[in-house]
């Protein structure tokens, strides 16, 4: 029971970390919270379901197409909705919130309220350390999630593009003075943030099927992770995501399943009370 809960917590924790990285990237660079993050996560799930299950595309290709489409949609959202709100954070909050409601209702209209599920990548189960049998699909999701996180870290910490991202999130004006086209960077990073939500979506939806509102709890947890880890901190996302995944699953196993999502909120309140800048956050004035 304990071992399985920890394992489940790790799998979902990696996905939380991935979703939170997308939110954090956008917050760090643009100071915009994308409230439609969860709906883009779900959209990727629907895309990968459509391409793989309905059109018979190879599942890996379907996943990549789904991520690419959501990336393009993210760029479109930035260009049409977010860009005019620069300098007024409040409108971007309102716009993305409305967008999330619109998308939820559009999914309901198009796909219906029923759960849809892209095909499994692998079948069967593996004996984990002789403790319990664990579904191969979940193990694959854990590995894939960890791999994507590793790629994101590599890109941000080691490449030239990553240096631009870090420079801009540290000091926007200085970056501009050094020749960074911040408008284009905003568009790209918003798209990338959405693509990370999409990556989380295609990885997790074979395990947890998509419904029009299934993105809400994932996005909420991602927001809590971002606050917990500290706005804009990448390590904060990873540590916070794993922590929340573990707390939720252990809490569900030993305290109450109905209150699974409440534990995250309790952590959020505690963080705001004790260390409002988050675990890895820079204290702001």
């Amino acid at each position, binding site marked *: 029971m304990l071992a399985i809960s920890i394992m489940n917590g790790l799998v979902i924790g990696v996905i939380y970390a991935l979703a939170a990285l997308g939110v954090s990237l956008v917050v760090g660079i643009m100071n915009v919270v994308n409230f439609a993050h969860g709906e883009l996560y779900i959209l990727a799930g629907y895309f990968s379901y459509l391409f793989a299950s309905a059109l018979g595309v190879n599942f890996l290709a379907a996943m990549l197409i789904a991520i690419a489409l959501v990336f393009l949609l993210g760029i479109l959202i930035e260009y049409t909705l977010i860009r005019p709100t620069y300098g007024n954070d409040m409108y971007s909050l309102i716009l993305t919130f409305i967008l999330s409601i619109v998308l939820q*209702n559009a999914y309901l209209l198009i796909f219906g309220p029923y759960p849809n599920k892209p095909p499994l990548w692998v079948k069967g189960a593996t004996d984990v350390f002789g403790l319990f049998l664990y579904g191969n699909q979940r193990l694959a999701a854990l590995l894939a999630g960890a791999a994507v996180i590793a790629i994101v870290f590599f890109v941000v910490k080691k490449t030239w593009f990553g240096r631009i991202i870090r420079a801009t999130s540290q000091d926007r004006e200085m970056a501009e003075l050094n020749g960074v086209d911040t408008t284009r960077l905003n568009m790209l990073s918003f798209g990338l943030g959405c693509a990370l939500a999409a990556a989380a979506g295609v990885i997790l939806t074979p395990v947890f099927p998509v419904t029009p509102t299934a993105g809400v709890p994932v996005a909420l947890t991602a927001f809590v992770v971002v606050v917990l880890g500290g706005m804009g901190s990448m390590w904060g996302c990873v540590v916070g995501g794993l922590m929340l995944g573990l707390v939720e699953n252990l809490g569900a196993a030993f305290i109450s399943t109905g209150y699974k999502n409440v534990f995250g909120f309790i952590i959020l309140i505690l963080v705001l009370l004790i260390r409002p800048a988050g675990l890895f956050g820079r204290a702001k004035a």
Partner: protein
Amino acid sequence: MAGKKQALLSALILAGMCVLPLGLGIYPQHVLIVSLFYVMMASSWNLLAGYTGQVSFGHAAMAGIGAYASGILTAKAGINPWIGIGIGTILAALVGLGLGALCLKMGGIYLSLTTLAFSQILHIIIVNEYDLTRGTMGLQVPALMAEYDKLSYYYIMLAAAVLILAILHRMIHSNLGLNFRAVQNDELAAKSVGVKVLYVRVLAFTVASAVAGFAGGLYGHYLLLITPEIPSLDLQFYVLAMTVIGGMGSFIGPIIGAFALNILAEKIRDYGEYHVLVFGLIALVVARFAPNGLLGLWKRFKPIKPIQGVKQKAVPSP
């Protein structure tokens, strides 16, 4: 002079509102009563978003607190509904005070994130605590009067809405209202001239929460069945869409928005459950292209008038 004209117009509209339901059937009366609930919700949300620049996604949750607090007290403990509504209002105010004090020192985004999380959590708690709230089945609560009568409810709701609007109007056009605006426009500049930014923000959030709790309590005792639909993101979205479409940051905008959208929702319902999607698309377009809402659009084609309540000095002509 403008003030007098405005007062006359308000009195005329109020008189119109008093006789309006007399010739109507029960169904239009119901629509009007619900609209008045939304007037209170949207106007108080506007106090936050439109006047102090903080976006709360927990306004429906505050209405839920008011409704459930009063509902549980009256249905389980047999307390008088009016006292129940009062307690619900105070409870919502206290929760608002707590949440506001907790996250507003960290800035606006934290308030949005925390209130969104809070509203979801409240929803989960209400659904799970079946013994107390009867979950998704809904909690039956007593009516405000012995004899259930739509017309009486209409006048109670109208009186409540007028009271709330009068309080909000007074607040906005007082010194405090100027502080609200100052915090919204430039936090740093407001701080530098001695506005207690945190205090002003938390106060606005507490007042708005109290109004939502009050409106929610009344609404619950009108519906007679309280369900988790009250503290839901859908209702939160309605309130937001009404304010945004009507005109955020103007006093009349949310009032017009509340009536227009609620009546429109009933019309769209004839064709199916598309109203949320339709409102979402309209709100998206309005927020993007006309951030001051329909009222702002209308004003754009009228000669500019000075903001009411703020005395403007005559500019000497050159």
